[in-house]
């Protein structure tokens, strides 16, 4: 079975400060990793994903995440946040190709609040 742990339920930061949202997973097999974002009153949107290859993946709005197999982590970072980044962020994992790879297992989410 797979599980995802998001270590911080809330992260308040000031605008233009760096931020790191932590995510650890457990799985007995190789996995695909995802970060989803949920802005207020909106549905979940895919922010970025790791499938294979380069362990550093980036989103179009300046977020990046690094897959660390030895530490089973997939932390999300941004060097300088904006007010508009205020949202809830969910880390998720799915199994490898074949089997039930259609199922996403989510963490409990981290509420990022960016203050002026």
């Amino acid at each position, binding site marked *: 079975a797979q599980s*995802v742990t*998001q270590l911080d*339920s809330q992260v308040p930061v000031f605008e233009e400060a760096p931020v790191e949202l932590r995510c650890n997973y457990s799985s007995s097999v190789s996995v*695909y990793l995802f970060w*989803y974002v949920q802005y207020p*009153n*909106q*549905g*979940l*949107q*895919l922010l970025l*994903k790791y*499938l294979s290859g380069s362990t550093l993946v980036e989103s179009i709005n300046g977020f990046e995440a690094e897959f660390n197999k030895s530490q089973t982590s997939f932390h999300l970072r941004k060097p300088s946040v904006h007010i508009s980044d205020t949202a809830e962020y*969910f880390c*998720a994992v*799915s199994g490898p*190709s074949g089997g*039930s*790879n*259609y*199922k*996403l*297992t*989510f*963490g*409990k*989410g981290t509420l990022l609040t960016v203050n002026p």
Partner: protein
Amino acid sequence: GAGVSQSPRYKVAKRGQDVALRCDPISGHVSLFWYQQALGQGPEFLTYFQNEAQLDKSGLPSDRFFAERPEGSVSTLKIQRTQQEDSAVYLCASSLAGRGFHVSPLHFGNGTRLTVT
């Protein structure tokens, strides 16, 4: 439509009532999923359809929960004899892919918030 549409947006039910939640996926999307998100938790998988076939219903919490997608487009999640523990946001998602979901992204609706009193 432009995105996944869910209705109603909010639903209040008295304990014991039956409810039906509707999901309109993006046109042409083969795969459809239902997730349940309790307060303060991440979404949890309920069931998965590929076209009209329900390929996985292992996440449905009890036999009071039933989902269908008879024509391979619109889906309905029905909950019979609602209980307080059923209170949650129910999310629907669709994907163009019939497999290889890690490549084809999931598109989520805004969810239906069900409150059972």
